């Protein structure tokens, strides 16, 4: 009996079509749209979201065993044994990702309509934002590795273009370049992985790969482990995991909605998605999965420690993002797929919310981002403050919020798998404490305390308007391309921002209810068909241990918040003393574990040195040397020629053309 999958296919393609159409329409009419561009962009994503909902129900209507629908438009590049179709795979995992991506994107578009209102690049912004959503959806819906790589790289470009959106800032263009090149390294990893898998299995198609792999590979087969490690290079470059993470903090050069959308909610989770997508392969190569999990653990701890000391508001949130993605990577690598995807979802909600709130605060601070300058915004900006606290609660894993349920599910799973996997549980809980602390380092410092001058002004109804300057270098901005325009926008005064933040606040608080141990399991039930036959997916910690884990997690979260309360509200100023006492440690953390310097010394400098060597030494030898060797000839001819430069050329021309003419004539004569 065949099942009619046409509606799932149609919705699958529509999810892609709307954002692409939006991007093209906005770009082509760039002189014409004006402020309408924002609404066109938002509308296009809303339609994509509606299509994703359609796909959700279409998939649910199918019998569980046929919920992996493939569809292809045409043979994209198929020849000589390679079969590369423009094909998508619509299954529960892809649909849930599409829902998160389009849903959060829609709200961020809405927020941007107001936030970017007076930026001179308004139309360009929405064209690129729509293009980003399209790219991300290509990545998510791709049915084969080639299309995945294409989406993967498109996302990288969109990220580049939006990081360097204010392209007259040298720091922004440099950050864009860094992000792009590291992402290309990831693309190369993916490409080599695809070659290796193709060489072994003869296909790029997900479902075919998954079907062939178990029969072809032994457990921990060398080729498979190698392929998956290469795949992880791609995943880690995109998801900012050690050691390919250094671009993410610099990416905060982009406008705040970009940070919220790309560098928190969607793009950086691509690596998590990829591991979940290819889980049948990772389960055949537990070694590769363990490597991934350990790197996730390292990243989550490292980033959490850095977030303790950084003072740039957006960068704190960026390091927090790295850390949270570390949790997800651990989750999908140790087999806690439901928990990983669930955390991906809740994180998208509360992290986007945090960035939005941060954007509102930064606007009120006239674009200054240093939290040392901020304090006491609770009266001036009650809405923003409330939502910021909601976001911080969810990030900290405060009992009952969405982040609480999703994070604990990961850690309980790790503990329950036991053995070596205890390390992940212990490390995860330790970092959870740090997370709670730094969340409220932001929360308390920005919201509580004596109002800073900007806050006091705002209470009297005046928004601060400093000269725009680069928050990194202090250089005066060249305002022709925005920053983010002469008018600043805060949530209190712009309903689209309030609406977007309000919805996300609701989700950040209550999305956890979808998946409460022993009570609900909506996410898991929905995902089941994708992970059919996976023993790790079926594995469940007992409800009792889940509750025990939640108790531990809850206590740690409260403890972290309490510590932050003590340090920043009760006795502000204690931290300065701590910094003095542990100067070495502080420097180590503040300089981000010296990773930038390490990469600089290991990669960048050698490459530049090679370039210089090639230029100054090799090229001399090759270009001048060889010729100058034969230059006896060159010079000789040169001397002869110098007297009658063009004369020589002319004679030569006549000779060759004449010769050719004679041959042609001969041909005519002979053939007649």
């Amino acid at each position, binding site marked *: 009996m065949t099942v009619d999958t046409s509606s799932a296919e149609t919705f699958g393609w529509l999810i892609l079509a709307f954002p692409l159409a939006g991007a093209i329409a906005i770009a082509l009419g760039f002189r014409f749209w004006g402020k309408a561009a924002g609404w066109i962009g938002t509308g296009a994503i809303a339609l994509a979201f509606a299509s994703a909902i359609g796909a959700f129900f279409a998939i649910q209507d199918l019998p569980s065993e046929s919920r992996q629908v493939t569809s292809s438009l045409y043979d994209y590049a198929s020849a000589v044994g390679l079969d590369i179709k423009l094909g998508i795979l619509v299954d529960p995992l892809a649909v849930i990702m599409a829902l998160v991506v389009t849903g959060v994107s829609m709200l961020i578009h809405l927020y941007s309509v107001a936030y970017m209102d007076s930026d001179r690049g308004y139309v360009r912004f929405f064209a690129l934002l729509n293009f980003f959503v399209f790219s991300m959806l290509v990545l998510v819906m791709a049915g084969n590795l080639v299309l995945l790589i294409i989406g993967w790289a498109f996302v990288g470009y969109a990220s580049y273009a939006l990081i360097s959106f204010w392209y007259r800032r040298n720091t922004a263009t440099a950050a864009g370049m860094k992000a792009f*090149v590291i992402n290309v390294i990831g693309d190369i990893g993916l490409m080599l992985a695809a070659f290796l898998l193709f060489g072994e299995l003869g296909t790029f198609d997900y479902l075919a790969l998954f079907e062939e792999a178990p029969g072809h590979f032994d457990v921990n087969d060398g080729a498979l482990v190698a392929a998956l490690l290469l795949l992880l290079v791609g995943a880690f470059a995109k998801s900012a995991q050690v050691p390919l993470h250094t671009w993410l903090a610099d990416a905060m050069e982009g406008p705040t909605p970009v940070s919220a959308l790309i560098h928190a909610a969607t793009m950086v989770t691509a690596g998590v998605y990829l591991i979940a997508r290819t889980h049948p392969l990772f389960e055949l190569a537990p070694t590769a999965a363990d490597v991934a999990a350990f790197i996730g653990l390292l990243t989550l701890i490292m980033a959490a420690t850095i977030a303790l000391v950084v003072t740039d508001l957006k960068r704190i949130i960026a390091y927090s993002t790295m850390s949270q993605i570390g949790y997800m990577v651990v989750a999908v690598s140790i087999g806690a797929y439901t928990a990983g995807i669930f955390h991906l979802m809740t994180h998208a909600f509360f992290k986007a919310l945090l960035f939005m709130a941060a954007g509102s605060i930064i606007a009120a601070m006239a674009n200054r981002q240093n939290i040392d300058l901020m304090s006491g915004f609770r009266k001036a900006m009650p809405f923003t403050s409330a939502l910021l606290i909601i976001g911080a609660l969810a990030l900290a894993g405060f009992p009952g919020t969405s982040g609480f349920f999703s994070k604990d599910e990961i850690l309980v799973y790790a503990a329950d798998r036991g053995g070596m996997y205890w390390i992940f549980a212990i490390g995860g809980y330790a970092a959870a404490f740090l997370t709670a602390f730094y969340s409220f380092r932001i929360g308390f410092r920005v919201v509580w305390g004596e109002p800073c001058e900007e806050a006091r002004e705002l209470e009297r109804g005046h928004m601060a308007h400093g000269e725009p300057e680069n928050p990194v270098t202090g250089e005066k901005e060249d305002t022709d391309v925005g920053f983010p325009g002469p008018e600043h926008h805060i949530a209190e005064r712009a309903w689209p921002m309030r609406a977007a933040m309000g919805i996300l606040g609701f989700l950040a608080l209550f999305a956890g209810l979808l998946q409460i141990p022993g009570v609900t399991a909506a996410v898991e039930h929905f995902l089941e068909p994708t992970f059919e036959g996976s023993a790790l997916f079926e594995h469940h910690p007992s409800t009792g241990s889940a509750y025990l884990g939640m108790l531990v997690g809850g206590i740690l979260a409260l403890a972290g918040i309490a510590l932050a309360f003590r340090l920043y509200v009760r006795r502000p100023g204690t931290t300065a003393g701590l910094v003095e006492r542990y100067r070495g440690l502080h420097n180590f953390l503040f300089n981000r574990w010296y990773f930038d310097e390490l990469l600089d010394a290991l990669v960048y400098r050698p490459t530049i040195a090679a370039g210089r060597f090639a230029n100054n030494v090799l090229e001399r030898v090759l270009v001048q040397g060889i010729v100058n060797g034969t230059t006896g000839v060159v010079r000789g001819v040169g001397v002869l020629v110098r007297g009658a430069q063009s004369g020589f050329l002319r004679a030569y021309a006549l000779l060759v053309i004449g010769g050719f003419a004679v*041959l042609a004539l001969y041909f005519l004569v002979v053939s007649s």
Partner: protein
Amino acid sequence: MLNVLLWLPLAVALVAVLLPRRAVAPFSFLGSLVTLALAIALVVDFDSSIPGLQHEVSESWIPDLGISYALGVDGISLFLVLLTALLWSASFAFAAFRQPERRRNYFFMLGLAETATLGAFLAQDLVLFVLFFDLMLVPFFFLIGAYGTGNRVQATIKMMIYTLVGSLLMLVGAIATGILVADETGELSFALADLRANVLSEGTQAWIFCFFAAAFLVKMPAVPLHGWVPDAYRAAPLPALALLSGVLSKVAAYGFLRVVFPIFPDAAIEFQELVMIVAVASILYGSVMAFTQSNLRMIIAYSSIAQMGFITLGLFALTADGADGAVLHMINHGLVAWPVFFIIALLAERYGSEDLREMGGGALRAPVFATLFIIVTLALLAMPGSANFIGEFYILNAVFQTKVVYAIVASTGIAMAAFYALRMYQRTMHNRLPEGKTSREIGLRDGVVLAPMVAVIVGLALYPGLVLERGEASVQDKVGAVLAAAECEERFYAQDGEGTQPGVAGIELDCE
């Protein structure tokens, strides 16, 4: 049909010489459009299931010497012919809008060069190929020598010496091939089909192969035979340089497929690793050089060396998919190189310089220009989603399956390409404007030239299979010759006594 296609550009050029000055440029451009239309008709008419030649023309030309006037088109040359016609039309438009001095001579040289280049792609006789190959360069010596900038005469002489040495070696090789084959068959013929049927002994193949390879690798150019490149690129007038880089370099790569693989298959196997090393060296060296340059032309010059390295690598993977990818990548590189040089001309007009250090902020008032430029840039760095990516994907996949180390080393070239290409875009269009410079949108006149070229890049990106599918059968045929030879060798060493004829992709070969 091929006769008309081949000689039309020269005929137009000859007529144009007689026209009044004002009419020369428009007439030449319109003439090139007719050639383009013919080339498009050729593609439409093409039957991709036939591995052999289509629209064959074969006449005896100099029977005493066994030279014939044989033309034909197959899946390998099909899109190269179209690329030639397209880029020449674009260059005619480019030059027509900028009205060079002594334009009769200028347009005549361009027309002559087009005929010669088409001839090299269409020729099915070895001597005819060599003739067109050499003739093709002559107009470029003049265009650089007479219309170039800076140290143009020295650049011309250097290029001439390099390429003539290569050409002479090739001529010797061609004659030797004909005579040695004639020794066996008793009949002198230079027709490629005749030469192919009679494979020379391995030792003979080896030295003739070296002669041909030298000529091709110089022309391409490959490291370390690229000594003529920097000077020539610096001096050449841009409309000619765009063709030199976009089309002429492909003739050399094409020569490997058309001439070398079928006639010297054993030598191709023997020298496989050596050529691959040269290719990888070109990729690495070209890429590293490209990101240390500040002159835009030099960036593209070295980037071309790297891209040609990828093409050579794909060819010498000696598999059908590698070669098919190489054919696609030849088209890709031509389609990208031309617009880049055009953009360099536009930038030079805006900044009065071709040096990156004197540029910046160009995107400010020029969103359309910046958009067209970024599309070209992304194609240049072989961004996934572009046809360039599919070309490299096919090439590297083929190499990965046969010689994995080369693929891994070569793939670093992709990361470097990302860096040098984006750096070029960023330093010209982003950051701040230098003092006293203004950002200006692309004008209509230049827009109508650049936009269609970008549209072609986008179109091919949507469907790279267009080239791959049509190349498939022909490529299998050419590489099949090599594979069959490889199989012979294997059987020889395996002392296979069954006496069966190895046949790969329909090629039957005598295993001695």
